[in-house]
């Protein structure tokens, strides 16, 4: 039993089931991120943990106590909302202590708790202001203060950074991570931003269509995606997934992929079990950063394949240059060093780190497990 158990939980609205048999166990101190595109059910799941939505079947337990039907205020949870949801008529200080007041905490204790939290978040100078007089980042801090002051078992974050501008978002991301490391609290965090998910979490649940597609550490999710959806959703730019055919060359399995001019290249697999797929079609997944020029190829890799292909578009982004080419009839993006000598229309010798490549079954879209 974990600290927070989501046990075979489903959610239906009328006859429509929107969450299918979700089963996640969160340990104390874990930072679980629920990530997925809009409408995947991640916010619904969070609201069910909070008690703002009913549980249709299954159980949610916090510290082994069943939470089905328990009022939100009795679950010892705190939630940070996307819009921050600060009470507009109260000062920052009143906002922070409102929950304690409602739970009947005596005033001296409330004041002390408020001071501690304000100090932790560096918002002491804002305590007498109204939310309307605060900037986005300050409101974000106050919203976190309101959650922290309750000293809850579980923190719930509902896309807390999506209303901030890009720079502030990165700062607050670091801030949240620091806070988690310092306090060691259990957090469930909902986002549609896969970079937030990767950077913050100790574990990620990738959701789509009401199913948990994969549950694992950020590294597991990134390196060994369970299926094509997870592979393409996580990572920016997305993983390239191209049609290929498995063949045997010199007793080793290779992926035969069409180049821009209908000639083909053979990319040898690192996984020998691909021999079992000899002659069959697969989908080959290659991360953009594993396609480079010769000099930038990973020296620790035991399996660098070469191919010469025509460059279609180059997009310099400062630190990297993104190069688009046609592979297997699809646009494929490579992430090159910014000083790589790439020009649109030219043929360029690429190096592909096949150790990192993954293969998917084209029918089920599931990864072929080595």
């Amino acid at each position, binding site marked *: 039993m974990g600290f927070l158990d989501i046990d075979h939980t489903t959610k239906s609205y009328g006859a429509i089931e929107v969450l299918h048999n979700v089963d996640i166990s969160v340990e104390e101190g874990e930072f679980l991120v629920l990530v997925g595109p809009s409408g995947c059910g991640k916010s619904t799941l969070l609201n069910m943990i*909070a*008690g*703002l939505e009913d549980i249709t079947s299954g159980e949610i337990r916090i510290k082994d106590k069943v939470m089905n039907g328990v*009022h*939100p*205020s009795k679950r010892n*949870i*705190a*939630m940070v*909302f*996307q*819009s*921050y*949801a*600060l*009470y*507009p*008529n109260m000062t920052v200080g009143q906002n922070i202590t*409102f*929950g304690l007041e*409602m*739970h009947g905490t005596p005033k001296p204790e409330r004041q002390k708790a408020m001071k501690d939290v304000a100090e932790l978040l560096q918002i002491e100078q804002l305590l007498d202001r*109204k*939310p*309307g*007089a*605060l*900037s*986005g980042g300050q*409101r974000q801090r106050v919203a976190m203060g*309101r959650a922290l002051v309750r000293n809850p078992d579980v923190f719930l974050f509902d896309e807390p950074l999506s*209303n901030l501008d890009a720079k502030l978002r990165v700062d607050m991301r670091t801030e949240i991570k620091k806070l988690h490391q310092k306090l060691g609290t259990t957090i469930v965090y909902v986002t549609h931003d896969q970079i937030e998910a990767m950077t913050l979490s100790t574990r990620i649940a990738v959701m789509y269509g009401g199913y948990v597609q994969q549950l694992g550490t950020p590294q597991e999710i990134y390196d060994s995606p369970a299926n094509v959806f997870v592979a393409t959703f996580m990572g920016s730019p997305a993983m390239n997934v191209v049609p290929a055919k498995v063949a045997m060359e010199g007793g080793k399995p290779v992926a035969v992929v069409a180049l821009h001019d209908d000639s083909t290249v053979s990319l040898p697999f690192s996984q020998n079990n691909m021999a079992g797929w000899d002659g069959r079609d697969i989908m080959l997944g290659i991360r953009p950063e594993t396609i480079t020029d010769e000099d930038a190829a990973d020296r620790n890799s035991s399996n660098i394949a070469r191919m010469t292909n025509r460059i279609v578009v180059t997009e310099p982004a400062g630190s990297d240059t993104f190069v688009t080419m046609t592979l297997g009839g699809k646009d494929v993006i490579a992430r090159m060093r910014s000083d790589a000598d790439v020009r649109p229309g030219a043929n360029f010798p690429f190096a592909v780190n096949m150790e990192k490549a993954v293969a998917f079954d084209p029918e089920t879209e599931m990864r072929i497990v080595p």
Partner: protein
Amino acid sequence: MSAATQDTAIRTGRVTRTLIYLILLLFALFYMLPLYVMVVNSVKPLNEITGGGMMNLPQVFTLEPWAKAWSSAQIGVEPTGLQPYFWNSIKMVVPAVAISTILGALNGYVLTKWRFRGDTILFGLMLFACFIPFQIVLIPMARMLGLMGLAGTTWGLVLVHVVYGIGFTTLYFRNYYAVFPTELIRAAQIDGAGFFQIFWRILLPSSGPIAVVSIIWQFTNIWNDFLFGASFAGADSQPMTVALNNLVQSSTGVKEYNVHFAGAILAALPTLLVYIVAGRYFVRGLMAGSVKG
């Protein structure tokens, strides 16, 4: 701000502009005419009016008609002036406005933040109350007031006006709360606030503008109501409007037009006052800064 909006104004020449303002001014004067007539004639001695020249400014300025209308004019059979009826109206209007506004706010809160099966149908039915003509309910209402023992009392009138006003106040508050961020309610729920605590501590303090709308609307309607006052009020609970009618219609002696004008202005003053005092709260956006900025 103002610099940016000037571009969108229609460019007109000086002559056209003068013409426009001239016409507007004429219309304004035309609309002000009844008020002018009432004011000037209420401060004239009666012989100046009966001698013709209703539009003239007073030759002799006197406040006596005002004093008479207020405290000694013949209303029906008693020479009490409008004063007791003014207090009757206040005693009726204040509770009726307060109760109907609070009930409307509660209804709006429940209809938007505590949704239940059939809530839209219920709201539709309540809206219906806005369209029922007064005359239809006179007889059933008289019967109900009689059964409740409220016939001829101020509280009976309060009840009638609350029942009639609740449709409008519910409509106002429901539409206002519909765009009130539900996340605030959820945050308060997690913080442990109950149904009424959320209402009093979170929702009501942010309801300033719509409360003002509701109060102005209800105050004006109830203060100006004549039909219910004439139908359901007893001798000692008649509102100002009914008394004003009795003052003007009383057939003994000469018609004191100056007193009538003064009485009419007195009857209209409170509604004007409510507009002047509360009107400026209309524009204050009290919701600023609750959610993202």
